[in-house]
């Protein structure tokens, strides 16, 4: 199949660019075939043999999150909202990643669980596991399909590629290498993709800053081009909903994003936690998210800065997708526009490969997590409890292919009914945000009961869906959820996540108070006070996870002060 180049497009590729993209596809498939022989057992296929170093697990942890939509979506958000978008990389990630490494990882790792729903089974019992696993499986496949559709749309706009071509080639490539090598292959490719994403995207901020005259030159140009808004401070304009382009208050950022949303995603979303569970020992598992936090802090360099540079140097304004007229460009095209502005043949191919690598790393994360949760938490639990290990590996390979096909089907469904995209993006707040309360309370407090965990998770999910439906039915109710009539969409998401988390925690605690907890001997390795975490006192300071978590936390605080 040859890409359709008849339509309007932003970028034209030359022979070296096409060669670079083709080499990338060949390499990832070759890695899948190479690793197939090492993934004959369940531990190898689903947990990469639990022998990843802290660096490999840490880079994979970040890469699985660094999808193409993440890259292009947040570059677009930076153009629209300014540096406020960096909150999703800093307060919306770093504290939670450090918390995962220092506080939560010992419980996940020592319990020897294969997945987050697996931990819920050990701590709360089967009903909570099934609720969490089923919602995760549905969410993952739908998210993957929506990302695939969005990526194909971008490839159509940017390169003029036929959408069916983009969907099938990318999806089948991911399907092949994950089905062959399981999590092993996904992690290997994610590390490769991590390098390509950085090296493909890093030239934009370097050349952009040269053109704009450095940071101060860029700020001066932005103020000249858009004098009515503050685009270059992260906290100063958050005192009121109306003072910033995002229409959000600092409480929404700190509590909704920084506390519930971020901790929900980084500590309980199995897509990312699975990478850390593949680490070779507990110290590596604790270090992995801490190593990841340093790179996460730097990601705004290749995502947020290009959006800000576009505000400074592009000679025409970008517009929202909904207001797009002939000859105009939308916010979502900001990264490809900047790529085309600075990168000639060869470099352009590398930049496009970075976007494709981002998409594929995100999708590989989705399907490998889906395969594990389906096989271990749904299939084994509901249908075949005692099959041989080889049977589960076979099932894992089959449902990797199934996951890819379901994602493709979702992509086509979104193509027909575009409004589904809005609904699917709300799934995160329905299923992941409340999960943090359930997992965290279960880890730190022995008094939390199985009934409390189940009811809290269900209440958090249902309340989140309820709030979302309420605002869809009557948009004026946004003022109830976000506590201000001046709040905008982003604020709604953050406050919905916050209330869902609060409701989950409250219901969990109240129901636990009236129901019977599990006996202490059943909580060994699962709950604080009943879990023996190996001491790291004999290690030199620079080898201890807590030391590097401290360094990361200090850097995080310095960034807040610099960009205050």
């Amino acid at each position: 199949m040859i890409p359709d180049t008849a339509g309007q497009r932003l970028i034209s590729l030359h022979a070296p660019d096409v060669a670079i993209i083709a080499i990338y596809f060949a390499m990832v498939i070759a890695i899948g075939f190479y690793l197939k022989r090492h993934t004959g057992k369940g531990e190898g296929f689903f947990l990469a043999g639990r022998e990843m170093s802290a660096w490999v697990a840490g880079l994979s942890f970040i890469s699985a999150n660094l999808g193409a939509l993440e890259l292009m979506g947040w570059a677009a958000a930076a153009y629209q909202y300014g540096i406020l978008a960096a909150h999703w990389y800093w307060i919306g990630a770093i504290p939670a990643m450090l918390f995962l490494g220092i506080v939560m990882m010992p419980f996940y790792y020592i319990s020897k669980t294969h997945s987050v729903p697996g931990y819920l089974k050990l701590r709360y019992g089967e009903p909570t596991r099934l609720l969490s696993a089923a919602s995760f499986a549905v969410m993952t496949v739908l998210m993957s399909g929506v990302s695939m559709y969005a990526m194909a749309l971008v490839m159509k706009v940017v390169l003029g590629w036929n959408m069916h071509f983009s969907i099938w080639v990318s999806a089948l490539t991911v399907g092949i290498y994950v089905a062959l090598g399981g999590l092993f292959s996904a992690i290997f490719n994610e590390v490769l993709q991590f390098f390509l994403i950085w090296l493909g995207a890093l030239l934009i901020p370097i050349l952009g800053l040269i053109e704009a005259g450095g940071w101060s030159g860029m700020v001066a140009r932005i103020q000249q081009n858009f004098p009515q808004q503050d685009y270059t401070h992260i906290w100063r304009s958050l005192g009121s909903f109306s003072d910033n382009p995002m229409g959000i208050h600092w409480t929404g950022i700190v509590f909704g994003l920084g506390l519930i949303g971020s901790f929900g995603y980084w500590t309980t979303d199995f897509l990312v936690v699975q990478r850390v569970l593949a680490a070779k020992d507990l110290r590596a598992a604790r270090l992995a998210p801490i190593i990841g936090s340093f790179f996460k802090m730097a990601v705004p360099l290749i995502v947020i800065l290009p959006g800000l540079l576009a505000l400074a140097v592009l000679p025409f304004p970008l517009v929202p997708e909904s207001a797009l007229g002939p000859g105009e460009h939308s916010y979502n095209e900001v990264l490809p526009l900047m790529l085309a502005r600075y990168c000639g043949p060869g470099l352009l191919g590398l930049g496009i490969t970075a976007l494709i690598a981002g998409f594929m790393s995100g999708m590989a994360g989705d399907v490998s997590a889906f395969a594990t949760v389906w096989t271990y938490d749904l299939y084994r639990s509901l249908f075949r409890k005692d099959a041989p290990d080889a049977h589960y590996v076979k099932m894992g390979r089959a449902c990797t292919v199934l996951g890819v096909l379901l994602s493709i089907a979702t992509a086509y469904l979104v193509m027909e009914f575009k409004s589904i995209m809005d609904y699917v993006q709300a799934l995160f707040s329905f299923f992941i945000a409340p999960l943090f309360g359930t997992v965290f309370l279960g880890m730190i407090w022995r008094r939390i009961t199985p009934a409390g965990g189940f009811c809290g998770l269900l209440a958090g999910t249902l309340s989140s869906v309820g709030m979302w439906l309420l605002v869809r039915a009557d948009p004026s109710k946004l003022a109830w959820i976000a506590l201000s009539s001046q709040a905008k969409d982003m604020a709604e998401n953050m406050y919905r996540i916050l209330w869902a988390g609060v409701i989950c925690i409250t219901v969990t605690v109240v129901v636990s108070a009236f129901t019977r907890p599990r006996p202490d001997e059943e909580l060994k390795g699962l709950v604080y006070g009943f879990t023996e975490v190996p001491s790291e006192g004999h290690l030199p300071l620079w080898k201890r996870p807590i030391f590097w978590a401290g360094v990361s936390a200090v850097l995080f605080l310095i960034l807040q002060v610099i960009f205050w």
Partner: protein
Amino acid sequence: MGEHHRIIPVWFFVGVILSIYGVLILATGIYGLFHPPSTVLANLHAGVWWGALLMIVGGVYVYLFLPRKS
């Protein structure tokens, strides 16, 4: 990672692809010295030094993590 099952380390694959990309981008960048692309700041010849950088980084990784019989 890798010694256990004698798996080639991921860093070797990283080195291979960066080296290939380095050669391709450097060669395209050198061609661009004589036929400059119509991009902003084309006079900086980013393709040349970025290609060289990829080649060096890729080469170091290949050298350090080359699978050896021992």
